[in-house]
């Protein structure tokens, strides 16, 4: 009898300790304000109509203090190096037409302002959505007489980072009224809630239902796209949105769709929309 009581007491003690550990293991978003070079970024906002969550949050709020500080200092942020690299590419002549990006678009600070906040857009000619990477390729092939970049070419990542950075701080807004973009949005939404892979996970399983919790040693965020391409400390490099999509899908042990495939373009439309109203943080810093 006494033995049983001792056992129960011991079990209770274990439960208490375990409870504490569980609590400490939660990874709720922090209350913090992101100010970069005096510019206040929108990291928390009301979602657009039809959004399943009450508050839309930037992934920045889910990161640890060190990572948050690294992004907040535009000098220290290693992503700034890729912005500078992209600026060089912007002014470099390539292809048979003897043109650079700047030959037509002049100063990116003016001509590219707002681009990063409003893409993906509807491409009427191709009858599918177009993102910044594909728009660059289109320009290269049609206007510069240069080759399209291979997916995730370091130059593609740097130039995309540079172009998206021109919308730094501007709120994300995808105009779904153009062309068939709404249909692609629906397709992306279906994908977002479809479980796939051997682990039987949908995007929503982690990023909608469990954001703020840990997945192994990592904090789950809402998975918004406003910081992409983003500097990931793990890779010590800029990571493109489609690379991250593929990484996530691979981790569910599913077959991964190709970058810029219909599946991932639809997902980009939907996921970007989910982050509506958040500031473009490119180059964001994540773990």
């Amino acid at each position, binding site marked *: 009898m006494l033995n049983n009581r001792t056992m129960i007491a011991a079990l209770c003690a274990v439960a208490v300790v375990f409870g504490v550990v569980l609590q400490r293991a939660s990874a709720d978003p922090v209350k913090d304000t992101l100010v970069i070079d005096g510019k206040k970024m929108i990291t928390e906002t009301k979602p657009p109509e039809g959004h399943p969550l009450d508050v839309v949050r930037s992934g920045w709020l889910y990161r640890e203090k060190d990572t948050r500080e690294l992004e907040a200092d535009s*000098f*220290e942020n*290693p992503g*700034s*190096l890729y912005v*500078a*690299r992209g600026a*060089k590419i912007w002014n470099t002549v390539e292809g048979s037409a003897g043109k650079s990006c700047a030959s037509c678009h002049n100063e990116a600070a003016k001509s590219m302002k707002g681009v990063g906040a409003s893409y993906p857009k509807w491409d009427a000619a191709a009858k599918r959505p177009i993102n910044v990477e594909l728009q660059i390729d289109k320009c290269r092939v049609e206007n510069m007489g240069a080759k399209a970049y291979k997916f995730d070419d370091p130059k593609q990542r740097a130039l995309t980072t540079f172009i998206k950075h021109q919308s730094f701080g501007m709120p994300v807004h995808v105009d779904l009224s153009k062309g068939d973009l709404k249909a692609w949005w629906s397709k992306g939404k279906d994908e977002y809630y479809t479980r796939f892979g051997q682990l039987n996970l949908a995007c929503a399983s982690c990023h909608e239902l469990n954001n703020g919790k840990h997945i192994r040693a990592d904090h789950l965020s809402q998975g918004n796209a406003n910081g992409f391409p983003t500097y990931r*400390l793990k890779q*010590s*490099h800029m990571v493109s949105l489609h690379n991250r999509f593929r990484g996530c899908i691979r981790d569910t042990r599913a077959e991964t769709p190709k970058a810029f495939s219909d599946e991932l373009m639809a997902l980009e439309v939907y996921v970007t929309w989910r982050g509506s109203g958040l500031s473009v943080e490119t180059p964001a810093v994540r773990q």
Partner: protein
Amino acid sequence: MAETPKIRVPKTAKKGEVVEIKTLMPHIMESGQRKDKDGKPIPRKIINKFTAEFNGKPVFSTSLEPAVAANPYLQFFAKVEESGTFKFTWTDDDGTVTTAEQKITVS
């Protein structure tokens, strides 16, 4: 592509002031411990030395090791007594030397 380091030195300072200096160098810092797709070791390629001089006199220097992450960031302080030029030098394993300079006016 030739890489351009980022440096931040105050443009002006008072005599005897201790100024903060920040440097960020784009570099892969390949440790030499990793292997490529075919299982062959990827040769080490890191910035192994950094020095800072002020008007030709050494102010700060450090050796960097393979465990240092890509794009090494260094922050340090220097006391300035006169106007002059800071010169920063990064030395790569392959012998490439990258330099950058920044003037400071001391009043």
